[in-house]
C-alpha cells in the first residue's frame, strides 16, 4: 500500500518496526503533495528541504537503534496560527505575512520533542475567523471531494491536507467549530478537546475563553494517538488544566457501547437541516443503538441563542486580542505615516482583511460605553444558560449526538457575501465551545451529491475517553473513514 494512504498509527507501526525509513516517508509525501497540492491549495508554507534533511538525520541516528518515540518520523501539518520557531506563521493574514516566530507553541514543542517531521503550515481563514478558508489573504483552499466547494474553516487547510493524503495528520484550532466543521466537510476526524486540556501557549489568540487546539486525523484511533502527545498542563498557559492525562488509546479497547447513554437533542434536528444530513445522522444513531447504546431524547432549549452569544463574546475578545497588531514590534507596518495614531490606523487598515475588520468593529461596538450591558453582559448571562442546558442533559446521558453541520460542504462564493449566513453554518458546533466541552466530528455518511457528512459526539468536560470510545466503536462498525476522495 502507498505510504501516503496509511493512517498515523499504521505508519508509526511500520516506521518503528524498521519497515520504512523517514526519508522514504518524506519522499512519498513530497510526491503526493506535488501531485495534488496545485488543486487543493491546503498549505500556506511548505518546508520540503528542512523535512528531507530532518528525515535523513533521523534515519542516520536510528540506524541499528530503533527506540522511537510515538511521533518520531511522522509527517504532520500544522495550522498556520500555531507558532513554529524559524518557520513563518502568517495566520493567513497580510499582517503577519513575513512573521517568523522566535519560539514554538507548546503543542509544537511537544511534537518536536518526539522528533515529528513538519511538512508545512496550513491555510486558514484569516486569524481563524471564518468557516470556509475564503477569508485567507492568500486565497481559499479547496475541498478534495469537489474542488468547487469549500473545505470548511477555519482549519480548512489542515482538514483538506488530511483528506487529500498530503500529511498523515494535522493540528487545528477550534473557537466555534473550526476543527469539527472542516473535518465534517472533508470526511475526516476532528477532535476539539475540553477547554484547558491542551495548552494554547503559542496559538495566536482569537477568543481566549473559547479557543482550543486539537487533532485532525484520518480515523478516531489517530485522534486519540495525537491527543496523547499534546494534552496536559503547561505552566506557560495558566488556563491549561493541572490534572492527569489518561492514555486515550486505552479508551478504544471496548468495542461496544453497552451502558453508554446517548442523548439526541431535538433542537438539532429542526428546520434547515439538509435532508441527506438528517438521514445519515439518523442512521448513525440507529447504529449506536445496535452497538448497545441506550438512546434518549433530550433537550437543549437555548441552542438557538448560541450563535448570537458567540458573535458577541468571540468578537469582543477578538477586538481586544487583536489590539496587539499595531505595527510596532512585529508584523506589518504601514509606510509614510504622519504620527503614531496614523501608524496604528493605517497599519491595521492595510494588514487586516474584511472579515477581521468586521469582527473587530463588532467586538469594539459591543464593548463600548452605553452598549456593554445590553450586548456583552447579556451574552455572558445567556452563555450561563447554554452551559446549564448541557449540565442538565449530562445528568441523563453520557454522550450527546448531533449533526456536525447543517449541510454538506457549500460552494466557493456561496456565502462569502453574507456574513450572517456564514455565521449560521456553525450553529451545531458553537454551543460546545461556549460550554467548554470536548467534541469529536467523524464521517457518518455521504450525500446524494457524493459529499461527506459528519456527525458530532459531545462529552462531559475532561471525558474525551467516552466520546473517543463511542466514535471508535461506530467507526469500526461502519468504516466510513475508509472512503477517499478522487481529486480532479
Amino acid at each position, binding site marked *: 500500500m502507498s505510504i501516503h494512504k496509511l493512517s498515523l498509527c499504521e505508519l508509526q507501526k511500520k516506521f518503528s518496526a524498521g519497515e520504512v525509513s523517514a526519508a522514504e516517508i518524506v519522499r512519498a509525501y513530497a510526491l503526493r503533495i506535488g501531485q495534488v497540492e496545485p488543486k487543493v491549495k491546503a498549505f500556506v508554507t511548505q518546508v520540503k528541504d528542512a523535512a528531507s534533511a530532518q528525515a535523513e538525520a533521523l534515519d542516520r541516528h536510528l540506524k541499528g537503534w530503533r527506540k522511537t518515540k510515538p511521533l518520531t518520523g511522522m509527517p504532520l501539518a500544522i495550522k498556520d496560527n500555531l507558532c513554529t520557531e524559524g518557520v513563518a506563521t502568517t495566520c493567513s493574514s497580510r499582517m503577519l505575512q513575513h512573521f517568523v516566530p*522566535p519560539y514554538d507553541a507548546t503543542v509544537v514543542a511537544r511534537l518536536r520533542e518526539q522528533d515529528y517531521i513538519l511538512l508545512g503550515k496550513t491555510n486558514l481563514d484569516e486569524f481563524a475567523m471564518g468557516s470556509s478558508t475564503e477569508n485567507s489573504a492568500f486565497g481559499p483552499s479547496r475541498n478534495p471531494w469537489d474542488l468547487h466547494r469549500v473545505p470548511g474553516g477555519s482549519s480548512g487547510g489542515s482538514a483538506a491536507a488530511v483528506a487529500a493524503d498530503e500529511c498523515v495528520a494535522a493540528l487545528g484550532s477550534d473557537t466555534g467549530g473550526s476543527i469539527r466543521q472542516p473535518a465534517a466537510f472533508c470526511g475526516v476526524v476532528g477532535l476539539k478537546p475540553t477547554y484547558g486540556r491542551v495548552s494554547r501557549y503559542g496559538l495566536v489568540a482569537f477568543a481566549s475563553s473559547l479557543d482550543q487546539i486539537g487533532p485532525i486525523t484520518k480515523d478516531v484511533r489517530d485522534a486519540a494517538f495525537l491527543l496523547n502527545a499534546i494534552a496536559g498542563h503547561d505552566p506557560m498557559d495558566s488556563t491549561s488544566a493541572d490534572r492527569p492525562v489518561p492514555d486515550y488509546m486505552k479508551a478504544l479497547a471496548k468495542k461496544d457501547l453497552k451502558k453508554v447513554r446517548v442523548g439526541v437533542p431535538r433542537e438539532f434536528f429542526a428546520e434547515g437541516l439538509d435532508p441527506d444530513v438528517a438521514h445519515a445522522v439518523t442512521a448513525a444513531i440507529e447504529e449506536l443503538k445496535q452497538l448497545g447504546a441506550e438512546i434518549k431524547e433530550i433537550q437543549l432549549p437555548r441552542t438557538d441563542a448560541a450563535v448570537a452569544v458567540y458573535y458577541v463574546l468571540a468578537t469582543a475578545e477578538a477586538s481586544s486580542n487583536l489590539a496587539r497588531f499595531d505595527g510596532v514590534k512585529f508584523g506589518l507596518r504601514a509606510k509614510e505615516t504622519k504620527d503614531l495614531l496614523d501608524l496604528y490606523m493605517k497599519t491595521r487598515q492595510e494588514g487586516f482583511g474584511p472579515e477581521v475588520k468586521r469582527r473587530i468593529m463588532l467586538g469594539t*461596538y459591543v464593548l463600548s460605553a452605553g452598549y456593554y450591558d445590553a450586548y456583552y453582559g447579556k451574552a455572558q448571562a445567556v452563555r450561563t444558560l447554554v452551559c446549564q442546558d448541557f449540565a442538565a442533559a449530562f445528568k441523563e446521558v453520557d454522550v450527546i449526538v448531533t449533526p456536525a453541520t447543517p449541510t454538506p460542504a457549500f460552494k466557493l462564493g456561496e456565502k462569502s457575501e453574507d456574513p450572517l449566513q456564514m455565521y449560521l453554518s456553525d450553529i451545531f458546533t458553537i454551543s460546545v465551545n461556549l460550554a467548554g466541552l470536548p467534541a469529536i466530528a467523524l464521517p457518518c455518511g455521504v450525500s446524494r451529491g457524493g459529499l461527506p457528512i459528519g456527525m458530532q459526539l459531545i462529552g462531559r468536560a475532561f471525558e474525551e475517553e467516552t466520546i473517543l470510545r463511542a466514535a471508535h466503536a461506530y467507526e469500526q462498525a461502519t468504516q466510513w473513514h475508509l472512503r477517499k476522495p478522487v481529486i480532479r
Partner: protein
Amino acid sequence: MNITREDVEKVATLARLHVTESEKAAFAKQLSEILAHVEQLSRYDTSGVEPTATVMGQVNVFRDDVVRPSLPTEKALANAPEREGDGFCVPKIIEER
C-alpha cells in the same frame, strides 16, 4: 439596532482602524444585520443569572517568582518593522512646542 455611518466612524476610531468610505457603508449595513440577530437574546430572561466569563472557574494562578531565561534581545527584535540599536523605532510621540 440601526448602525449609522457616524457610529461606524466612532467605533473605527476606538478600534484604531482606518476605514474607507465604501467600508463605512458596508459595515453600517452588515453590523446592523448582525446586531438585529443578536437582539433575539432579549427573549431570554437572565435576571439573577451569573455571567460566564470562563468555564474553568479559575480565579488567579500563581507561580514562584524565580528568574528564568527570557527571549534574547536579537530574537525579540528579529521581527521589528524598524529598529534603532536595541529598541523598536516608532514615530515621535511627544510634540515639540
